[in-house]
């Protein structure tokens, strides 16, 4: 790969490192920002809609979204699926980290399916229907729909928790990949940190969802 040679590196190594990096910056940071934004669901329809719409006021908003989120996410997901196919299933080794290793892969697939459904439901659908802008009304009516409301809610619940798990556990392995946490002790510290992060982000997103449940 030309780009890799240009960086004096093996392309295999480079793509793996970019995969690891894209999981945290920008996609992981976007996830945190995105979940934070959802807390405005408690501030009522107008404030919530304004806070979402104000992002799109910038003429560069769409570009920023595509370059900062969609392309890195697509790269991360594409390589992620490829990586899942390269592993060997070894159920007799029942260690906790091995379980997390598989949960990381399963949640990755779940998150991908959720993101596709979510982008369709919250972004592309309203756009094409011409109802773009009334995000709060769109979401809450989807949740309270007597026929599909329960399914929508369930998908959102598992999708959001799956994404939070994938990000928190990914941050944990990220610290190993880049050699940030070296000793077993520091790896335990990072693990405790990522468990706390998982709990905080889960609580925050459950609280946000409660506003329109």
């Amino acid at each position, binding site marked *: 790969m030309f780009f890799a040679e240009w960086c004096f590196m093996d392309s295999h190594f480079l793509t793996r*490192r970019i995969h690891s990096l894209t999981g945290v910056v920008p996609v992981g940071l976007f996830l945190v920002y995105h979940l934070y934004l959802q807390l405005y669901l408690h501030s009522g329809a107008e404030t919530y809609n304004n806070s979402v719409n104000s992002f799109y006021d910038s003429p560069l908003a769409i570009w920023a979204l595509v370059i900062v989120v969609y392309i890195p996410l697509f790269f991360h997901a594409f390589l992620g699926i490829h990586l899942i196919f390269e592993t060997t299933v070894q159920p007799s080794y029942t*260690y906790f980290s091995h379980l997390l*290793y598989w949960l990381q892969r399963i949640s990755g697939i779940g998150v991908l399916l959720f993101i596709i459904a979510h982008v369709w439901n919250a972004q592309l659908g309203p756009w094409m229907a011409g109802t773009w802008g009334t995000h709060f009304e769109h979401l809450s009516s989807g949740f309270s729909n007597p026929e599909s409301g329960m399914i929508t809610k369930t998908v959102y619940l598992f999708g959001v928790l799956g994404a939070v798990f994938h990000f928190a556990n990914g941050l944990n*392995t990220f610290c*190993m990949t880049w*050699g940030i946490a070296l000793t077993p002790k520091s790896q335990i510290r990072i693990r405790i940190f990522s468990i706390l992060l998982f709990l905080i982000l889960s609580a925050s997103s459950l609280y946000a969802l409660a506003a329109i449940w």
Partner: protein
Amino acid sequence: MPDTVTLKIKRQDSETSDSYWETFTIPYIPRSNVISCLMDIQANPVNAKGEEVTPVVWESNCLEEVCGACTMVINGKVHQSCSALVDQLEKPISLEPMSKFPVVRDLAVDRARMFGALKKVQAWVTADGYHDLGPGERESTSHQEVAYKLSECMTCGCCVEACPQYSLSNNFLGAAAISQSRLFNMHPTAKNIADERLDTLMQKGGIADCGNAQNCVEACPKSIPLTESIAEMGRQVSGKFWRNIFQA
């Protein structure tokens, strides 16, 4: 106490033939280990159906868990058969060859790929020429403590057998070789080619193929801190990653 022990052994007659399971029942001997059971079968190669069969082939040398030759999958988990005690194992005992290496015959596998990995990362002390270089650098006690632990690796293969990222169809170096590259990158003399070792770790099959499942460190019979080694080498290649982009 039972009078007999039953072993289910996964056998294979040649490198290319199909594998099959065969059951053996042998007299129970207190405090025996898996190798002594295999020796019993060798002395009297009759299977549980009473048929005389070829003796089961396995490898062993030291019989004290320091050479690594006798490694096999015992009751689904990889371990040295010389230190696997019959009294502590669930019965019937199942024995399989390691699944990440080509089988030579029965329980004997060819671990050449592991030794090849050590060659790739140049896991040795480099010295050029025969002239007297004087005494080596003094090592601190803390340095010795880390290095000694790492040097206990016997290239047995447990770590790569348990690793979900190591397979017959890829060329991952595995945790042992990554850990050895750490050992030699911290050695006062061997570290003069530290960068070459990092180059190897940054190629296909190198450290990027580790998926952080951390099975290796659980499976290592020598309790070598493999995930610490992987993180340390991850740090070293991260340094080289940025140096390559901004300084090379």
